[in-house]
């Protein structure tokens, strides 16, 4: 779509008196609101919402959708985000009235079908993670991290170990890890990675001690590498009296091969909107269940879903619980989708998911490493990180490469993360992509790399084909305009 004029906002399309709604007429005798309300509390100026007809609204949002790019549009190898296919049956299931139009406070005996799904999902996740117990409460990964750390804190406090104030996170960790540590009242300290891209055990030994509350670890880590010394790390942390936290955003690599519980983790969160196909929704909603070892089970957020004599109940009587982390029972709508997916795949299917996710990633990594620098050369798991250092020397930054990919119809990889790789390009193909797709993407990357050598300006000035070109982000932050204000 070629656009020479600004694309209109809803508010600019609005015309006084136009409507797009259909409400029933008032069928009860009218009360004089002047008598029922103090006039100071009756709104005098209606909120300036737009006034449009139904078709105008539909055209607006249809046009907006065409200015957007999802997994269904094309390849979306955004590392750390597991942009796999979002099955359509999931969408059909959650839209059933019996799942979508039920109230969290209706009598649990009238919602057994929903509670059964929650209970069974918990059971399946317990097995997949190897944990003793699971709660579906947290709304997303970061929320699960915080809930998990709060449980670890509660355990230390119960044991009288209030001096355990530090949470160790690797320098490769996702930003939410240190942020969640802070929100849970801890201090985040960073452990270095070694030249293999794995946690430096000597540095870890140096850091652990009386004040260690936990080590937060993603395994495979954000470089896509398996922390092969996991048992030794677990021992170091446990011996110092700390707990081991598993960031399950990367579970897609290991299902059916190994489980966080078997690796010695005490707490794990999962991102159901990644491995388990909850659609990413343009940024959410997600779901971030937490699993715990037996020692921590009493601290799970409440309520806890239990089954007694064939009846599923919501147990609120949890004296040691860290409390409520969110109203109601978690993001049920996403949990139903994840459940549908697990039931579609089964044990063999989930293992194949991980097998193919890892195979796809390694294939891409080997082919791309012919031209791009590969800082860590061992086999990767579900994703890998390249460095654009070589191209940068030619004046082409990783950002330029990302922008050039847009012209070929791809969503670029995650860039400039993890932080310990210069000019990072983090690529996660996922298992739902066919080899032909990977090959075309690889060919495009090689072509871009060639241009970086021969015609760098082509890459530097990209993109050319998108509806807008590069945005002035500096001005956006310096003089923020966060809402429409009529002229």
């Amino acid at each position, binding site marked *: 779509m070629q656009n020479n004029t600004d*694309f209109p*906002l809803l*508010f600019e399309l609005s015309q006084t008196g136009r409507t797009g*709604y259909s409400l*029933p007429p008032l069928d*009860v005798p009218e009360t004089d609101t002047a008598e029922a309300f103090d006039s100071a509390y009756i*709104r005098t100026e209606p*909120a300036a919402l737009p006034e449009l007809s139904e078709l105008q609204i*539909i055209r607006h*949002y249809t046009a907006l959708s*065409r200015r957007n790019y999802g997994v269904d549009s094309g390849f979306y190898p955004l590392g750390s985000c597991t942009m796999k296919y979002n099955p359509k*049956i999931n969408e*059909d299931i959650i*839209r059933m009235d019996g*799942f*979508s*139009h*039920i109230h969290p*406070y209706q*009598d649990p005996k009238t*919602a057994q079908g929903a509670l059964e799904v929650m209970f*069974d999902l918990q059971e399946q996740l317990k*097995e997949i993670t190897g944990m003793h117990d699971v709660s579906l409460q947290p*709304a*997303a990964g970061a929320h699960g*991290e915080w809930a998990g750390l*709060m449980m670890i804190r509660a355990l230390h406090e119960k044991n009288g170990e209030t001096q355990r104030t530090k949470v160790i996170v690797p320098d490769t960790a996702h*930003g939410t890890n240190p942020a969640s*540590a802070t929100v849970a*009242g801890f201090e985040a300290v960073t452990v270095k990675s070694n030249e293999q891209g794995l946690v430096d055990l000597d540095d870890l030994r140096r850091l652990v001690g009386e004040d260690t509350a936990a080590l937060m670890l993603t395994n495979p880590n954000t470089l896509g590498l398996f922390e092969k010394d996991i*048992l030794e790390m677990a021992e170091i942390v446990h011996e110092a009296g700390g707990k081991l936290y598993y960031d399950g955003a990367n579970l897609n690599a290991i299902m059916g091969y190994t489980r966080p519980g*078997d690796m010695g983790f005490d707490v794990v969160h999962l991102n159901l*909107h990644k491995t388990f196909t909850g*659609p*990413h*929704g343009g*940024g*959410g*909603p997600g779901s971030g269940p937490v699993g715990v070892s037996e020692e921590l089970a009493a601290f799970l957020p409440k309520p806890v879903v239990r089954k007694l004599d064939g009846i599923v109940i919501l147990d609120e009587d949890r004296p040691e619980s860290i409390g*409520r982390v969110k109203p*109601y*029972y978690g*993001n*049920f*709508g996403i949990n139903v989708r994840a459940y549908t997916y697990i039931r*579609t795949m089964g*044990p063999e*299917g989930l293992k*194949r998911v991980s*097998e193919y996710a*890892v195979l796809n990633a*390694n294939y891409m990594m080997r082919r791309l490493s012919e031209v791009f620098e590969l800082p860590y050369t061992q086999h990767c798991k579900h994703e890998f990180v390249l460095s654009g250092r070589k191209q940068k020397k030619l004046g082409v930054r990783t950002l330029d490469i990302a922008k050039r990919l847009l012209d070929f119809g791809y969503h670029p990889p995650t860039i400039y993360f993890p932080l310990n790789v210069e000019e990072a390009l983090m690529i996660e193909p996922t*298992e739902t*992509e066919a*080899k032909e797709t990977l090959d075309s993407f690889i060919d495009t990357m090689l072509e871009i790399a060639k241009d970086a050598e021969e015609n760098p300006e082509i890459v530097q000035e990209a993109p050319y084909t998108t509806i*807008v070109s590069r945005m002035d*982000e500096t001005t956006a*932050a310096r003089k923020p305009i*966060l*809402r429409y204000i009529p002229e």
Partner: protein
Amino acid sequence: MDFRYLPMTEQDKKDMLQTIGVKDTEALFADIPDAVRLKKPLQIKEPRSEGELKAELAALANQNVTMKTHASFLGAGVYDHYIPSIVDHVISRSEFYTAYTPYQPEISQGELQAIFEFQTMIAELTGMDVANSSMYDGGTALAEAATLSAGHTKKKKIIVSEAVHPESRQVIDSYCRGQRLEVVTIPHKDGVTDLEALQEAIDEETASVIVQYPNFFGQVEALADIRTILHTQPKAMMVVSSNPLALGFLTPPGNFGADIVVGDTQVFGIPAQFGGPHCGYFASSSKLMRKLPGRLIGQTKDEEGRRGFVLTLQAREQHIRRDKATSNICSNQALNALASSVAMSALGKQGLAEMAYLNVQKAQYMKKQLEAHGLEVMFQHSFFNEIVIKVNGDIQALQDHLLAQGFIGGYHLGRTDDRLKNHMLVAVTEQRTKEQIDIFVREVAAFHAK
């Protein structure tokens, strides 16, 4: 067995393994130590075909009483409202729902603009300067408002009205425990925040005062008086949790000088779905703009001077600031914010006011009918679409009775407040007809009189 989401063929596999230079995929997992390897298949359920699974899950769904099979008088934070058909059509466009956070503005203008419009509509409704792109829900938004107020004022005492949703209060407690903040609860008196107790509790250590408007009991809190009390401690912030639909009728909190207004937009186009996902909103005065949690969309221009939108003020966020971030939130509720935007645009300026007015009128009618039938309606303040009634007899028995008559009854307040045993919080929305209200009242009155 074949899996329809997995395109890998035997030939692909062979070719790829060859390129990698390994014999089989096992070699790619060789770095997982044997001691932690799973030696047997996962003990989860065997897969089911698409048709079988649909049938199985439909049978489970059909076990549930729904707001379609029964007329719901249950609210307490989650409501049965009109959802324009266009909402689901828009959010079912896969360019929206299969995308992620709009990191690449050139191919994400649709999402970015839609959320910019959401931010604008929320700011308009609440009477605030700015709003963010969404929070998990109203409860966690409120908890983040509490911690933001502490961070901003460098004070550690959070005053919360007991007339705030009990589960939101519990979430505030959990978050404040995390940040080692003190939470002081002010009792309600006759269904609204006890202003004398508030006056007494507020002091130099107070970071914020948190109230709900309309409150958990449906009552309209006297925000003007609360603001006056807050003037005695000018540093303390006024945090208001608001049902945004009510703001189609009530004076917005911004007009009373609120510093932060939060709530849940479930009322706009989001099905109840057993409590989530809904969509928190977070609005504030512009002085707090650089401290807000979550994503913010800002307007800017591209190289050719065309208007466009980007994620902005990211220096607040976890991916940049890590342990110094203002919040740990990353994924939020973007798709539901979109659903609410579509619903708000469908309602528009006129429809939103009309829908709020219908709620007010039906609730007024319901109250009069209940009183006329001899029921005691508690708390005599102005109210939006919920009221509290006191019933003789066991509330569970009443619920069962109502269920048998085709109704989902109200919320039993005794669940969370011992003083309110035998009290039911009843919600009435524009979805309830006069006939449904009349029958419901008759049934409750008959039970009460027994």
